[in-house]
């Protein structure tokens, strides 16, 4: 991406801006919108900037514009700099005015990157698989204590050693004054596969979690939301076509491996209900994936490593 233009360019930039050609003045291009990102560009996990010199300055798409629009706005409104530049400008403004500090911002980033994450959810799932009484507390709360799972998880995380760190999974300082962490106060835990408890005991259910309008997500158990969860592609399809969405995830996961696809297809065909959970209140949903039969001899430690984030949202199932 181009460097921001120096002050020497100021007169030229003003001219371009005043004639409604601010796109040329802006210089650096915007990154492709993650909301409607092209999947090919995201292979390997990194957003791809347009190739050098490929119309970066006046690429309407890169600026967030639509080609199916008039060429200028009567109000004079013109495209803004890239989102990256706007975020950094906002950060600078907030720090300059003493609202936030660089340390606090970085501290929060470190918290999200290192301290919370799917390792917490995976630990809870593995423990639930191995302890039916813990599983029951999570998925079958009494009617007058609908968020008992949060209390059960708090007790579990405070009293269980994380083998990677040698310390408890959670301590009071890590929960930011809440029960188990951000968005963890009001948890409802769902079980995928054969239901172990409750009025649906024995039936085969698949649950999938979403926030169709924003990105509400059980961060306390899974960390930061992945791009796909926030994408409008996911949000617009998951409630009315959940199996189509899971098919898409599983097709990628099983690509070229017929036995794995057959395993998923058998799971999918035996389902009696597909439940979608749209997180529109402060309640957050989390899924205990079905444990593959082939894993029944494994230790809790071994099980933890095999539990994926996508499966804990119901977007995928676990493959043996």
């Amino acid at each position, binding site marked *: 991406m181009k460097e921001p233009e120096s002050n020497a360019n100021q007169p030229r930039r003003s001219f371009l801006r005043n004639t409604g050609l601010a796109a040329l003045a802006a210089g650096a291009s915007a990154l492709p919108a993650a909301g409607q990102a092209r999947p090919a560009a995201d292979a390997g996990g990194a957003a791809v900037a347009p190739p050098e010199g490929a119309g970066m300055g006046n690429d309407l798409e890169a600026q967030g514009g639509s080609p199916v629009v008039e060429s200028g706005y009567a109000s004079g409104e013109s495209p803004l700099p890239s989102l990256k530049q706007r975020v950094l400008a906002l950060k*600078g*403004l*907030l720090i300059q*005015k003493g*609202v936030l500090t660089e340390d606090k911002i970085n501290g929060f980033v470190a918290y999200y990157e290192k301290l919370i994450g799917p390792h917490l959810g995976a630990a809870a799932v593995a423990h639930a698989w191995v302890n039916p009484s813990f599983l029951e507390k999570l998925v079958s709360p009494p009617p007058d204590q*609908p968020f008992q799972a949060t209390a059960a998880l708090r007790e579990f995380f405070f009293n269980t050693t994380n083998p990677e760190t040698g310390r408890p999974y959670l301590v009071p300082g890590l929960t930011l004054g809440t029960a188990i962490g951000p968005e963890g106060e009001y948890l409802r835990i769902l079980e995928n596969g054969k239901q172990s408890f409750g009025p649906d005991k024995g039936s085969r259910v698949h649950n999938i979690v979403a926030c*169709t309008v924003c990105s509400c997500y059980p961060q306390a158990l899974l960390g930061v939301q992945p791009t796909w969860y926030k994408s409008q592609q996911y949000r617009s399809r998951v409630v*009315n076509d959940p199996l189509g969405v899971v098919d898409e995830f599983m097709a990628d996961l099983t690509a070229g491996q017929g036995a794995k696809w057959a395993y998923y297809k058998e799971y999918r065909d035996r389902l009696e209900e597909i439940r979608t959970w749209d997180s529109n*209140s402060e309640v957050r949903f989390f899924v205990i994936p079905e444990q593959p039969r082939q894993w029944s001899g494994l230790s809790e430690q071994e099980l933890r490593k095999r539990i994926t984030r996508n499966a804990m949202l119901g977007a995928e199932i676990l493959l043996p």
Partner: protein
Amino acid sequence: MDGPHFSVGWGGLGPIPDKQQSVSQPWHHQWQAMMQSIYAQLFTKAGAGFRPNEPAPFFGLDAARWSRETMAPRDYMNGDYYSYWLTAICTFIQEYGPAALGISEEDLVRRRICTPQQLQRTAAIRRKAFRQAVPGVNGPSHPGQLAGLFSSADYDPKQAGSVEAIGRRPRFQVGNRVRVLHLQGNWHTRCYPYVRGCVGTVMVFYGLSDEQPGQFDGKYHGPYPEVASQSRQKFYAPVYGVRFQGTDVFGDVNVDPRLRVHLDLWEPHLELV
């Protein structure tokens, strides 16, 4: 408020991106991490009130979500997800920046964080919303009402006595068949369009009680979003987990008959069937 954020059932957006995003890489770029950190911190602080010892006005996640809905549809559809969060911060600064943070709209525009036209659009939508009725409460134009404020004997804890008092008299019970009311307005709602008019079953009542810092009583403490998003009052209405047959919501053409849709709904959104 209805708009492109309510896109359940939309087709043509293409495959879901980045399905195997690495767990060890929560962000593709550091500026995204910055944005998440700033957003979380600002709205946690502002959600509790940003004047010393005053719970109102406040600007929490309900207000932030409304702000996204006031984006021009063009900006929403063309926007990276993080731009939605940036917009929420711009609205907060526009409405309360000078008093709460010592930051003004001019600061935003001068640094090209947003355009003046974006701020004007949001302001116009909010002005209209503040004159409109909201489900379940007496509106700001109600006779004798303080300008801009709602009243409700049912859902204002000051009138009802406490949040817990409201929670002791839920109108619906588990097993009730309820119909979701139709509604429209410029204000923020969590009663999503795709279930309006549909009949579902109450599966759970989440309870309601006063939040005690540091204590977890297993009950719900969140305010009624339609009022809380307007930043002046916190009302509390019983909220229920409701279940719908998928075919009742989306019809039976190309809809799996095994589909069950779960959504949480507040008492003012529902009527007993």
